[in-house]
């Protein structure tokens, strides 16, 4: 055995000892300055930002833990967060989860809305969309799509539109963290970024056989 391999063998043996078998947790961002960092971040905003703008910096448990674990929480914590997020999901009053795919198509393309600050804020009342194309491929005709999320082309064609799939799709858009804690995808329903009704339109855009997501 060459010395290098001998060393490797020793290391492997040490790692195999049960008490050391767990992988070392990744250091939370900021390390020992994390507390300090929170204070620096919070005090770095213009004093004339109204209070209701500043409240956007508040973190819920999901945001806080996702940051701490660099969006890759241990499974046990991930499962807890998923359960807590699942419990937040609310449905439209009428109970119908599939809306109008044409409305959904519009919402999927809209990336404006919700910008604040003094330099380039959105005018009041500016339409907020789902901005799905920023991260997902959807209808074939739209080539300007992002790749942060998976392609959703033929989403309904490949999955069908069983009650289970419809509910999953609605739930996923309402609160993505109910399924994958710390996913990159926003929680559109939880933050009231989209209304339950708007979410049903996007569900239709994804699932309706007539929607360009499935037809082309």
């Amino acid at each position: 055995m060459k010395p290098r391999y001998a060393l490797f063998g020793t290391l492997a043996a040490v790692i195999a000892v049960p008490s050391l078998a767990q992988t070392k947790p990744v250091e939370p961002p900021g390390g020992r300055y994390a507390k300090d960092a929170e204070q620096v971040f919070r005090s770095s905003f213009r004093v004339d930002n109204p209070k209701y703008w500043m409240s956007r910096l508040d973190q819920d448990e999901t945001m806080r833990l996702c940051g701490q674990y660099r969006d890759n929480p241990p499974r046990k914590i991930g499962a807890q967060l998923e359960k807590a997020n699942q419990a937040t999901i609310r449905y439209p009053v009428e109970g119908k989860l599939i809306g109008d795919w044409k409305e959904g198509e519009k919402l999927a393309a809209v990336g404006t809305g919700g910008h604040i600050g003094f330099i380039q804020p959105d005018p009041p009342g500016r339409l907020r969309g789902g901005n799905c194309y920023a991260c997902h491929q959807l209808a074939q005709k739209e080539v300007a799509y992002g790749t942060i999320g998976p392609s959703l082309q033929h989403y309904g064609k490949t999955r069908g539109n069983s009650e289970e799939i419809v509910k999953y799709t609605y739930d996923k858009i309402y609160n993505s963290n109910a399924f994958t804690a710390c996913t990159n995808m926003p929680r559109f329903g939880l933050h009231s970024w989209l209304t339950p009704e708007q979410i049903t339109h996007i569900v239709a855009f994804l699932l309706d056989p007539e929607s360009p997501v499935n037809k082309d």
Partner: protein
Amino acid sequence: MIQALMRMLFGSIVAGACIGSVAAQDSKVADELAKYREALADGNPADLLEVKGEALWAEKRGPRNASLEQCDLGLGPGKLEGAYAQLPRYFADTRKVMDVESRLVYCMVTLQGFKQDEVTRQWFSKPGKESDIEALVTFIGAKSNGKPINVPAAHPEEQRMAKIGEYIFYRRSGPQDFSCAICHGQDGKRIRLQELGNLTTREGAGTAMKTWPSYRVSQGAVWTMQRRLIDCMRQARWPEPDYLADSIIALETFLQKTATGTVMETPGIKR
């Protein structure tokens, strides 16, 4: 002219991308974007601003009628070659980690006698209203062209700021649950057609940091790194940071540290 070129190229991206498989579409789009960038690089409007910045640097101005030629950007008074590439850094005279913009403003205040709120009022340009800071930073940045970024963050204060920057990079908040890492923590992703750098790697952070300040075609203006990062926070739907805030300098320190070793190519030109 540039906008006409943009329209023409975007048209060909769309036309070209409609044919062929998804994979072919992707590479076609990437090719067209690369060609577009190449076309833009030939004659960067930022070059004019660089010339203006050079004149402003040497001009005697302010209540003290002094130039900025004795300004110490970290390598000694008046030493500009490579200065941008080694910022942010700790300065003993202010006992603070400062970036190029906060240091420049410090020099305008201490050497030229300007009031800070006076010189920072126009920290970025608006249509018809130019910004001296933008011009000066473009000039200072260009003096690091060809120099490797060098922010090892060895001083305890620099180390602290780099860690604070790392914390902010991963911190999620706002109505879209955003953090910097959401878009800039993975390799090879795009938002719409815009390629996203993985800023947690040297290559990704290097590609991002080496070209600032940069002329932004979509904005018709040169953006400094402060402007870039303050706009990132706007995109995250957060409130607006102060110009020269420590959170921005911390992010810059984190990114420059990660990018260390990458050779500067500035002023850049971007979408």
